[in-house]
């Protein structure tokens, strides 16, 4: 941010210190500095699900080099990570683990759905063990299309995330709100099929209907 953007109009600054001193309000200064720090050191979770993970590694490697965005520090533990790149097909067997990982990440945290599978199920959507998009469970910030997205596409997604972070306001972000710490996503249960605890009443009601599934309807 330039000095003249920061400076509030109406305050005269002597000519000889014009490029050194700025007079501004706390709010106007804090948000850009806070966001700049945050967006320049997004630490992704070292977490690969499928094919997309390889492109994620390629984006980390020499040719594409995510270090230019301050994102080269991959953390294997969710407790130190800011960004979860859901890089690949989310299966029903895996989704309880993914939700747990998300719950363990400290705020502020962001989720990126990388590739067609994480966004919507992709080519495997019809599969019986596939969750049709991670957004059924987690709040997604950025979707990156592609199967798999090229490293360039992933980088574009990361730039979009940075733009999103730039627009945040300290006074409004969810992680400074009262009572926010208690917000955890309930971990899905593996029963006869995947059960989302938030949807138990729906499941009960739909199962009580006479013909419930295509299988029972005989196709």
């Amino acid at each position, binding site marked *: 941010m330039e000095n003249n953007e920061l400076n509030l109009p109406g305050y005269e600054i002597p000519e000889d210190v014009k490029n050194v001193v700025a007079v501004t309000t706390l709010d106007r200064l804090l948000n850009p500095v806070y966001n700049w720090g945050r967006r320049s050191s997004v630490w992704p979770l*070292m*977490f*690969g*699900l*499928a*094919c997309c*993970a*390889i*492109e994620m*590694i*390629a984006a980390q*490697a*020499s*040719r594409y080099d995510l270090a230019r965005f301050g994102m080269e520090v991959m953390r*294997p533990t969710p407790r130190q990570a800011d960004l979860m790149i859901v890089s*690949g*097909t989310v*299966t*029903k*067997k*895996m989704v309880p*683990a993914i939700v747990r*990982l998300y719950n363990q990440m400290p705020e502020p945290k962001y989720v990126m759905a990388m590739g067609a599978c994480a966004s919507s*199920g992709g*080519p*495997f*959507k*019809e*599969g*019986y*063990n*596939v*969750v*049709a998009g991670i957004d059924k469970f987690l709040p997604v910030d950025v979707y990156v299309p592609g*199967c*798999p997205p*090229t490293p360039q596409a992933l980088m574009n997604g990361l730039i979009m995330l940075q733009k999103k972070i730039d627009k945040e306001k300290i006074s409004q972000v969810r992680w400074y709100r009262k009572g926010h710490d208690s917000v955890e996503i309930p971990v899905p*249960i*593996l*029963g*006869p*099929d*995947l*059960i989302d605890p938030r*949807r*138990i009443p*729906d*499941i*009960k009601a*739909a*199962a*009580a*209907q*006479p013909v*419930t*599934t*295509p*299988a*029972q309807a005989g*196709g």
Partner: protein
Amino acid sequence: MTAPASSLTIDLAARFPGAVSADVRPGYGGFIVPAEKLIEVATAIRDEFGYDLLSAVTGVDYIADNKMEVVYHAFKTTGGPAFVFKVQVPRENPVLPSVVNIWRGAEFQEREAWDLLGIKFEGHPDLRRILMWEGFEGHPLRKDWKEPFFEEEVKPFKSRWPDGKHTFAEVKNPFRDNLQFPADFDPEKVTFTDPEEALYKSLKKYHSETRDGIETDHILVNMGPQHPSTHGVFRAVVMLDGETVVSLKPVMGYLHRNHDKIGERNTFLQNMPYTDRLDYFCSMTNNFGYALAVEKLMNIQVPERADYIRVIMSELTRIQNHLIFLGMFLNDLGAMYTPALYAFEERELILDIFEEVAGARMMCNYFRFGGVARDMGEDALRKARELVFDRLPGKVDEMDRLLTENEVLVSRVKGIGYLSAEDAIRTSMTGPMLRASGVPYDIRRADPYSIYDRFDFNVACRPEGDLLARYMVRIDEMRESLKILGQALKQIPAGPIFPGKPQYQVKVPAGESYGRVESPKGELAYYVVSNGKPNPYRYHVRPSSFVNLTSLEQMCIGEKIADFVAILGGIDIVLGELDR
């Protein structure tokens, strides 16, 4: 190229008169063995006829005949085509004896057949679900089991083509999601089977004792599915005595994307891009195996130039896979980043060639039945020549020099994770794993496909059977691949790359076929059954990483927990292929 790869040179029916009969269905081959005679016949196949390597065990649901069929493909490690035998069991009560005691390599594949088809193998030491979780409803690959987003039996779905209407699958499902539950299912009242319980029971019992007046106990460590060194979503439950591994169970299925079921709904050609996503490092070799399997059924000849392009692509794939292997393996051993970054630099150059010929870096979808999708242009050939003749030999030497004589590396890998040649064969290891145990078995030489019989190359093989040997075999193999590439790039003729006009819908005669290739990770094979319709009746992938894990427990017991990571890295698994 004849129809099903099987050898009728051995007359099993004459050896077991009255019990065993030849499979005479048109397009099929091999023998049908009654379930009660299976153990006797299988022992004879291994010991008398010498088929010591059991490659694939899988089931097919012949719902019209009310039968389940279990198909076995056995090979000789000295080379030659497959020996196919089958067991037919009634659909209502599919029970047959397990062959685990004859070929231990059947262990995971029998579990898979139980999981997906509900076929029971009596005498199996640990018959649990393997890809789905314990407590899941139904056996998905049965023909009368429908997935929640079921639309029609086969593609192209009428709603999409020719009418072109599309509604979200969620709208049609009563649960508005990819879910199905039994009628009157009440999640609050049902007690669920704990998917973990059976798993922990299958491990060795906890053992506590008093040593020097101190009570000691075994501890249980869960590694994965989210762990930086399990190469994806693989999970292993390890029981430790101090730091030493006492018992270990791999847990798979966290990336089970229902390849086989989706493959049965697809048309033959629609499966090609799906094969890319099996072993996502090596889409070209995946394509190769599937193309071979279907070409065998269709009985078509591949033009000369296309064959050369196929070989060039698969060998480039092998080099980039092994480079990544080196990088990741060294990462697992603690040599963070440098080898991996070096490997990725070369890989990018190979991927540039793939991108140029196929249009995509990773998911190439390049092979077609009878040829390849696009010709390899002059520019791509020039790039390949530059890489193969000028750059890569030096880079492989550099990697070799940089790492192989490094004392820290050698002391970490020498003598670790030993697997003898007998055990490697018995557990159906293939690829570099088998060759590092001193068995020179390479499908490119043992049962040559495509035009591999024309090239002069050595089968990389090391007798030590430890991690260092596995590492060295990969380095040797890269050099051999460069040799093949050098010859192929010099000999590649001009000409067509596809016979006739490309077709959207291919006609595949009824029958079965088993197409296998030496993928960089081992034997990758496809078992395809056609009934003459536009879609495969059964589409099964025999993944190399999956079967190669059979010996993981054996290799790890007695080693340190830190070595488990290295041993797993040495197998070179990839989850897309492992879980499918």
